[in-house]
């Protein structure tokens, strides 16, 4: 019967199908028998109190943490058996919680490294900065509001700009599934607004999973919200439905 469910869900062409996912750290189940599905072009927001396992879920999908049991299928490929760089090459991009950029390199070089070409050792040695690369970097830099900073060393960027740069580094890979871990954390109000705008332009033609605490922001972008609590799904559905769910209210107010 379980297999019937799987075939059924596979027929529906989900981009990402997480099923029975469990990871245990020394007996502590950070994620416990989790199942959820992400549609094509869907924006899914994962919320939940601290320690609910949100970041662990992203870690599992991108291969940073290995699942104890369960499966993660991305376009019919089993991610749990793949290495991190293979998962990226399959089309999954992931932004970390703290801006993770190369401070010693310029904005251009940061984006160029993420350009999906010359990823092997000989490929990187013979990589040419041709017109296609430059145009693509320029295009992305404009999208992330950094077109006039291409020669700037990344360490001189503001916190918000660093977050955008990392989003840009993912965009240049053109992933089919984009995962963002708290993209607006630590941003000023104006940066936050610009980021929402940015996310709305970049989500076209791809699926996105976002972890976010900022409820205003979640309301603005989410198609569907998944509430995690102690490694399990507490509630799932539209923002309105989730907010009205007594279990969700209990968890957030009870703690």
């Amino acid at each position, binding site marked *: 019967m379980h297999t019937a469910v799987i075939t059924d869900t596979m027929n529906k062409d989900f981009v990402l199908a997480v099923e029975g996912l469990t990871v245990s750290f020394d007996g502590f189940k950070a994620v416990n028998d989790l199942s959820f599905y992400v549609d094509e072009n869907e924006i899914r927001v994962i919320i*939940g*109190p*601290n320690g609910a396992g949100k970041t662990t879920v992203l870690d599992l999908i991108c291969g*940073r943490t290995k699942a104890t049991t369960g499966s993660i299928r991305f376009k019919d490929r089993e991610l749990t058996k793949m*290495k*991190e*760089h293979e998962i*990226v*090459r399959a089309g999954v*991009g*992931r932004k970390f919680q*703290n801006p*993770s*950029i*190369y401070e*010693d*390199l*310029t904005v*251009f*070089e*940061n984006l*160029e*490294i*993420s350009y*999906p070409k*010359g*990823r*092997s*050792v000989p490929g*990187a*040695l*013979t*990589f040419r*900065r041709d017109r296609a690369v*430059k145009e693509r970097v320029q295009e992305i830099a404009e999208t992330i509001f950094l077109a006039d*900073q*291409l*020669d*700037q*060393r990344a360490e*001189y*960027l*503001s*916190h918000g*700009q*660093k977050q955008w740069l990392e989003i840009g580094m993912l965009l240049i*890979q053109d992933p089919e599934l984009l995962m963002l871990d*708290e993209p607006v*954390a*630590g941003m000023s109000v104006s940066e936050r607004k610009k980021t929402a705008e940015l996310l709305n332009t970049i989500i076209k033609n791809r699926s996105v999973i976002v972890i976010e*605490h*900022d*409820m205003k922001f979640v309301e603005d972008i989410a198609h569907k919200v998944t*509430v995690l609590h102690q490694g399990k799904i507490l509630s799932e559905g539209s923002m309105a439905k*989730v*907010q009205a769910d007594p279990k*969700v*209210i209990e968890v*957030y*107010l009870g703690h």
Partner: protein
Amino acid sequence: MLKSDRTFFLRPQDMIGIAVLAFLLIVILPLTLDNFRLQFVGKYLTYAFVALGLVLCWGYAGILSLGQGVFFGLGGYCMAMFLKLESSSVEATKIQTTPGIPDFMDWNQITELPYMWQPFNSLTLTLIAVILVPALFAFIVGFAMFKRRVGGVYFAIITQALAAIMTILIIGQQGYTGGINGITDLRTLNGWDIRTDSAKTILYFVCVALLIACILIAYFVKSSKLGRILVAMRDKEDRVRFSGYDVANFKVFVFCLAASLSAIGGAMFTLQVGFMSPSFVGIVPSIEMVIYAAVGGRLSILGAIYGTLLVNWAKTSFSESFPELWLFGLGGLFIAVVLIFPNGIAGLWQTYIAPRLGPLFGGTAARRASPPATPPAPPPSGSAAPAAAE
């Protein structure tokens, strides 16, 4: 047009830097130093190959190896084995029990040339071995460690252990390696006597030429995308991994490259000095080599060369007058570099001298002129208050 946009792998200031170094090594030093001192410089320069490898491996990629002496030694031993076989002809060794094998083998009751030594009858195979044997060894070590994500201090300690193991192995296997005395009494290279003054002068120039070729290779790697990936890896390894790169492969590559560069230095050392012994393989020489790169500037290809020359010159001068004090001097120098000028001589040059000379000599002048365009980042408030149900 981007400032960072260039088609050739050498920037104008790099070409000037290389030209100045070449002029110093090819013209000034040979004209001002006597043969005896020039041979010292030639010996120092063989360590510069190691420092060059360390700039790529440690400076750029952030992989600190405390065992570069192993690769220097492997290169040196490969060359020494060839030279030893050449000087152990049946005629020259007819007083031995088994003529035609190296003398130390005979003393150790070995009656037949070991298989390991057979390829070193050929100069071509020897030259290939000088590059490939250390690279292969580095590949095995690097692959085993980097694929398992061993890095940082653990890697440094393991490489240091390798240096110790290699020394013990060489000393222990006296019959095959010449033991603690090393491989000595080397005379000719394909019939050419390498002990004469003129041969030593020629070898000095060969060494300089090879060093400059290796510097060009280092610049090529540095300016390729691979060079930038190394810097990126040093900073945010996970980000590189999650940008679709197999990080371990890049580490293995740069470790192997550093090994091969060190080995070329080792081979030139054997040729110029005329022997090879385990005292150039172990922990102390390996750490000294790291100090050369640190003093010169671990982020600067040319800086590491000057650092090597300077530290060795200081070592020779000091240990001539105060032999006991030298090790303290070396230790003090290392502490000073770490505490006061972490980017070594090259860092001092780039901070204080190059900006006064204009962009052609340092390149940083233009960059320094443009201050950070944006105010410093606000502190990230990592866990903003969750407010789902409010």
